[in-house]
């Protein structure tokens, strides 16, 4: 599954220049490079994003956070949005 620059089977991470602040509704993200603000609308997408760097792929991060197959397309779209705005970036695996 891939949407433009986002491939769910690749390893991802929160961009190092992004600051993430938990909020009751999810989280706010601020990118110091693009100076853009974004937000995560629920706790599960926050759990996915937070754990991206710990998994070999975004798909694995979603699965670990309890995202079902049926829900996956919605989460993939959310991650693609974050990739578009450079909030998350592809990780180079050594």
């Amino acid at each position, binding site marked *: 599954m891939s949407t433009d620059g986002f491939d769910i089977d690749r390893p991802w991470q929160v961009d190092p220049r992004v600051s993430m602040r938990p909020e009751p509704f999810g989280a706010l993200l601020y990118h110091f490079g693009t100076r853009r603000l*974004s937000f995560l609308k629920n706790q599960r997408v926050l759990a996915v994003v937070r754990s991206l760097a710990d998994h070999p792929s975004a798909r694995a991060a979603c699965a670990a956070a309890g995202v079902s197959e049926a829900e996956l397309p919605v989460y993939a779209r959310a991650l693609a949005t974050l990739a578009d705005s450079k909030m998350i970036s592809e990780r180079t695996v050594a």
Partner: protein
Amino acid sequence: MTLTHDMAPAGPSAAPGKLTDLFQLGLDAPICLTWELTYACNLSCVHCLSSSGRRDPRELSTAECMAVIDTLERMQVFYVNIGGGEPTVRPDFWELVDYATAHHVGVKFSTNGVKLDPAAAARLAASDYVDVQISLDGATAAVNDAVRGPGSYATAMRAMQNLRDAGFEGFKLSVVMTRQNIPQLDQFKAIADRFGAQLRLTRLRPSGRGADVWHDLHPLPEQQRLLYDWLVAHGEQVLTGDSFFHLSAYGSALPGLNLCGAGRVVCLIDPVGDVYACPFAIHSEFLAGNVRDAGGFETVWKTSPLFASLRAPDTGGACRSCGFYDSCRGGCMAAKFFTGLPLDGPDPECVQGYGSAALAAVSGATPKPSVDHSHRKVPVTIGRRRPPSKDCDENPLAGFTALRLLRCGAHTSPSHALHLGP
């Protein structure tokens, strides 16, 4: 105050309703805030929203500023919009900028450019965590200097050239929209493009000294329409700090949250540590506390009764029956307050025309700023006009210039706008 020009939501929504509804109720910490570091300024802009000029002897010390930054870091405030006064005239300005960025608090500062020499520009270009806004209120020296003072156009242009030469891309060219400069929109865009800057347009507020010139400077109704159409045509290329959400009642909403963030997601810390709901509302009515109080800024943000009241669901008051209320949310609190209008009624520049009717009904004096640090002028007998100079006679803004000489005689402060979207 405006919040964020560019917010992209991500993820399925667990919460019912829109994010703006959540923001309406306030956050545990501001997203960003405006911090006027000093009331001192080399200029005396006629519309200065903080009535700046002279340094206040009670100004926060370097150590006190650093303690505020520590608090902001702990609260995870993403960035501060530093202004003044002219913030770069503080001798510890660069030290404070470095301290903030080292503590994960991003900095955007507004300046008239007076200290942005090639060395300062090079230093700024090297940092990812500092952004700069150069204030310019006319695309020509004639229009700009009439508002910001003689020589201020040249100063701003020199600063932008220095930033360009240092390789700083995407700094902001910040313009307060007035009756005189709205015809120059395309010229401003050309200037920004020439320097590799991004254009940022903000609303003139009747705050500070702005109250004295608002009636002569604020855009005419047909200019508001022109501005709205221009903003719609330029979309996200042009920033507005969410300044113009009152214009959304013309039709589709402009990019941004279109929400007054005052006390909800933004606020102001002034040079002496006073915390106000909004940078355009330096008045005791909107004073929530002081960072020197026990508990500091965090306690003010979390426990101020004023902020609690601003976070309460608003009823819309007299605007509730208007079909456009969901677009404009009644407009700008500060604009209403300083023109003597009730806070739960229409904005003085309501595009549906309710503002002008309300203004006509205002009787008596309008609220005056509680603090005024304007440069002292040579005492002038009230009502005695200086003879117009030849320059004034020939200036297309002659009437306006004469007004400035009468009132002010001096020069500027950066006005930047925060809204939810600095």
